[in-house]
């Protein structure tokens, strides 16, 4: 004991000379230590070390997490349990040993900060681990939740919190890289103390990140989410409902179809308690997407071969592109193998022909005979084009296998359009036309431009038999053997079609340079996922989950005479709100509207009371109109709400009117559309409890 104390004093003196700031801290510690020593009370000496050691960090790092840590540390001494006290002594002793080890390395100036960091980090880690084990969502937990008719409003609320919190972050990486307790310290990067702490914390965070991604529950969630069977998170959706109504709502609010991958992802992420864990899970999802793309496996819960649906959210469009690109790659492989085997068969046929002096077999290899009598292999022929025959050779016309155009999501369409407007370039059409010409030439040896036009642009060809009638149009089912002529506009000098035709070579589609590079497109999407702004991601997930809840609730409430009116008013509100661009400002209101629908389903008696209560209050105040009519005016008047963008004054009026009406409708004391949910005056204690539970961000 005495020896240790002497060592500590010696270190204090050494540190005193190194830096002014550190000397000041050491001096304070030295004085406190001497006071304790004067008292000559052993237990008090060790207890007193803690607050002194922590005080510098309190000044530098004033945060909730730190306060919680400090609070936790102070609790054991007050309990007065001897065992706890002895444990504390052991911890301090262990910390001191580490300090001694550092001293041996020869860097005495690091002694005190490292000593402090160890205690701090120990508590941070313990805290995080405890919370992780308690709050981590699991496959079992989420599966059990699907017994509820619609996703719980707490899940939607968590996504709303993420939307708002995410809008303050710069990127998803920032969310992951900034643990709650140390951001103030980072601002003082110049100080070696803070720098050391940041380095140590980063190492710890890397460890925590890898721990998260390898956590058993996370792995199970990923596997269930991407299970091709797709049974995970499936709810009963009333099949009696008109399909139009079920599919139209997600598109009206720019969400995603029910039971799609986006909606399931939204439900999982909404169950995590911290923004950082949400971000970590998203990165885990992106890694899985990369793996599926590499293995050319389809994403479940997304159509396999549909072009992007521009009325769904961008995330869903991007998932559609990934699956569509997988389909295209698979098709190209099959088509290439088919073409290659056909060519080998043709070579084999030639040998047989030479050896046996027999005519070449007509099947499965396709030939076209030129006027010179020569047989030429058809490459990339798909199917006969009706009864059309080539004008010069009389051979049947085959439609070629053609390349498909680009798969554009809404953001890429906007970029393309702006590019075209800015540069005047309309090259995309020419590229496709040239590709079609080359494929047509490969499939139809001996063809001329007129043959291509008859196939590609029938209105530009006039048959000779009907030459007296300019407006006659080629009918693909009608035999066509007589010559005709191109339209006047197609015969025009300088026509780009003829120039392209002269340029084109006979090359089948699968051998051409791709018009659309699938690898490049998907790589762009996956990179965008990694760099996606948090509010963009969580905003789309929020809207998608909102659409699912309303879609499921509609058949249950539309026939209910008590609630159908209120439900459709709520639905109209969310459609109008989601069609505006300022989602961040509306998530609170949307959550409360969702809670209203949830209450109508789970607590119909209570919801009925609230409706009657509102009616009574309306009668008392002498309002001439019923609450339903006023709600209809608010919700039904899309023009009024959308006019907000045009006139700020009108916006304010509408907001006031809406807020007041909803306030009187549910409870005169609370404002439904306030920025924060009502914390007092709530008619239901359970509701208040629910709100309190959902709001804190840990």
């Amino acid at each position, binding site marked *: 004991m005495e020896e240790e104390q002497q060592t500590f004093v010696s270190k204090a003196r050494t540190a005193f000379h190194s830096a002014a700031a550190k000397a000041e801290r050491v001096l304070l510690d030295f004085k406190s230590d001497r006071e304790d020593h004067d008292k000559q009370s052993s237990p008090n000496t060790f207890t007193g070390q803690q607050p002194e050691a922590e005080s510098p960090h309190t000044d530098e790092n004033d945060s909730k997490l730190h306060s919680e840590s400090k609070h936790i540390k102070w609790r054991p001494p007050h309990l007065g349990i001897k065992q706890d006290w002895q444990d504390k002594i052991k911890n301090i002793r262990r910390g001191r040993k580490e300090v001694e080890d550092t001293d041996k390395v020869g860097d005495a100036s690091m002694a005190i900060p490292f000593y402090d960091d160890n205690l701090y980090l120990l508590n941070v880690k313990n805290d995080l681990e405890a919370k992780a084990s308690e709050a981590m969502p699991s496959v079992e937990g989420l599966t059990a939740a699907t017994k509820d008719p619609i996703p719980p409003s707490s899940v939607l609320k968590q996504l709303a919190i993420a939307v708002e919190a995410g809008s303050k972050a710069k990127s998803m990486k920032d969310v992951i890289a900034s643990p709650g307790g140390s951001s103030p310290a980072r601002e003082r990067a110049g100080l070696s103390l803070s720098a050391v702490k940041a380095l140590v914390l980063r190492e710890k965070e890397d460890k925590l990140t890898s721990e998260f991604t390898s956590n058993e529950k996370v792995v199970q969630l990923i596997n269930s989410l991407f299970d091709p069977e797709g049974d995970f998170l499936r709810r009963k959706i009333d099949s009696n409902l008109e399909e139009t109504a079920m599919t139209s709502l997600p598109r*009206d609010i720019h969400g995603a179809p029910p039971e799609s991958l986006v909606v399931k992802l939204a439900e999982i992420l909404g169950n995590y308690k911290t923004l950082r864990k949400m971000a970590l899970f998203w990165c885990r999802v992106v890694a899985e997407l990369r793996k599926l793309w590499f293995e050319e496996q389809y994403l479940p819960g997304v159509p396999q071969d549909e*072009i992007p649906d*521009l*009325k769904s959210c961008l995330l869903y469009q991007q998932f559609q592109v990934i699956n569509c690109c997988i389909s295209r790659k698979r098709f190209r492989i099959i088509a290439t193998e088919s073409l290659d085997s056909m060519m080998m068969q043709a070579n084999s046929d030639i040998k047989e022909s030479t050896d046996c002096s027999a005519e070449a077999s007509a099947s499965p290899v396709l030939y076209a005979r030129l006027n010179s009598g020569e047989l030429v292999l058809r490459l990339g022929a798909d199917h006969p084009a009706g009864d059309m025959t080539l004008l010069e050779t009389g051979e049947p016309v085959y439609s070629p296998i*053609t390349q*498909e*155009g*680009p798969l*554009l999501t*809404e953001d890429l*369409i*906007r970029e*393309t*359009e*702006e590019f*075209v*407007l*800015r540069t*005047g*370039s*309309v*090259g*995309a*059409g*020419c*590229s*496709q*036309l*040239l590709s*079609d010409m080359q494929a047509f030439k490969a499939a139809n040896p001996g063809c001329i431009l007129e043959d291509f036009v008859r196939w*590609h*642009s029938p*209105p*530009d060809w006039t048959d000779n038999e009907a030459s007296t009638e*300019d*407006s006659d*149009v080629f009918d693909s089912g009608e035999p066509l053997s007589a010559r005709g002529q191109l*339209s*006047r*506009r*197609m015969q*025009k000098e*300088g*026509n*780009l*079609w003829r120039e392209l035709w002269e340029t084109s070579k006979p090359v089948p589609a699968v051998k051409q340079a791709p018009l659309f590079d699938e690898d490049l497109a998907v790589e762009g999407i996956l990179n965008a996922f990694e760099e996606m702004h948090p509010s963009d991601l969580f905003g789309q997930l929020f809207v998608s989950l909102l659409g699912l809840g309303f879609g499921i609730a509609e058949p249950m409430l539309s026939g209910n005479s008590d609630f159908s009116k209120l439900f459709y008013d709520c639905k109209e509100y969310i459609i109008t709100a989601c069609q505006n661009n300022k989602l961040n400002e509306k998530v609170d209101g949307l959550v409360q509207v969702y809670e209203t629908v949830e209450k109508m389903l789970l607590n119909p008696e209570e919801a009925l009371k609230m409706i009657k209560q509102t009616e009574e209050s309306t009668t008392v105040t002498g309002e001439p109109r019923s609450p339903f009519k006023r709600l209809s005016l608010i919700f039904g008047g*899309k*023009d009024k709400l*959308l*006019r907000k*963008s*045009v006139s700020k004054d009108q916006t304010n009026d509408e907001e006031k009117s809406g807020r007041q009406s909803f306030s009187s409708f549910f409870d005169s004391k609370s404002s439904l559309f306030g920025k924060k949910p009502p914390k007092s005056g709530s008619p239901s204690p359970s509701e208040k409890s629910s709100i309190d539970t959902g709001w804190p961000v840990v």
Partner: protein
Amino acid sequence: MDSSSGHQEFDYLFKLLMIGDSGVGKSSLLLSFTSDAFEDLSPTIGVDFKVKYVMMGGKKLKLAIWDTAGQERFRTLTSSYYRGAQGIIMVYDVTRRDTFTNLSEIWAKEIDLYSTNQDCIKMLVGNKLDKDGDRVVTKKEGIDFAREYGCLFIECSAKTRVNVQQCFEELVLKILDTPSLIAEGSKGVKKNIFKDRPPQSDASASSCC
């Protein structure tokens, strides 16, 4: 309707889209509107566009008008340009019944599939009025279709320029009468990313790969 050229400040930016079968005169109609000229233009390859400034209701408007190829092979390419259009012009040829039939068979369905703007104004245009002697689609048929489909209707001739200005004017007036579209038009102005297309001696020519 006053018109001006060159890079200008403007109050609203609207996107218009022209669709319809190949050969009905979409490109000629657009050229007639923007240049007061008529040409027998080569078939459009993919998409083309023209920009026109107009004064209407005391406001200066910038119109970005997209002209699409009507051939089926170009349909995937042109489907991208429906996004965000405030006005869509559906064109048919009064001397070819199939171009009128395809309005409901093809083009109305394309609008339902690809248009992302629920409030967009649609206009039905019967072109080639100058060939009235060869007419096979009556004006009444056009009116009935427009009424049933909920869109504006006009017959015109790109060649003689009859009703060409009125066609676009009616469409834009209707857009200006729709608050949600006005809001979108204002939003486009803030970005102000668009620049005028450089003038070309031959409007039908286009640079490409």
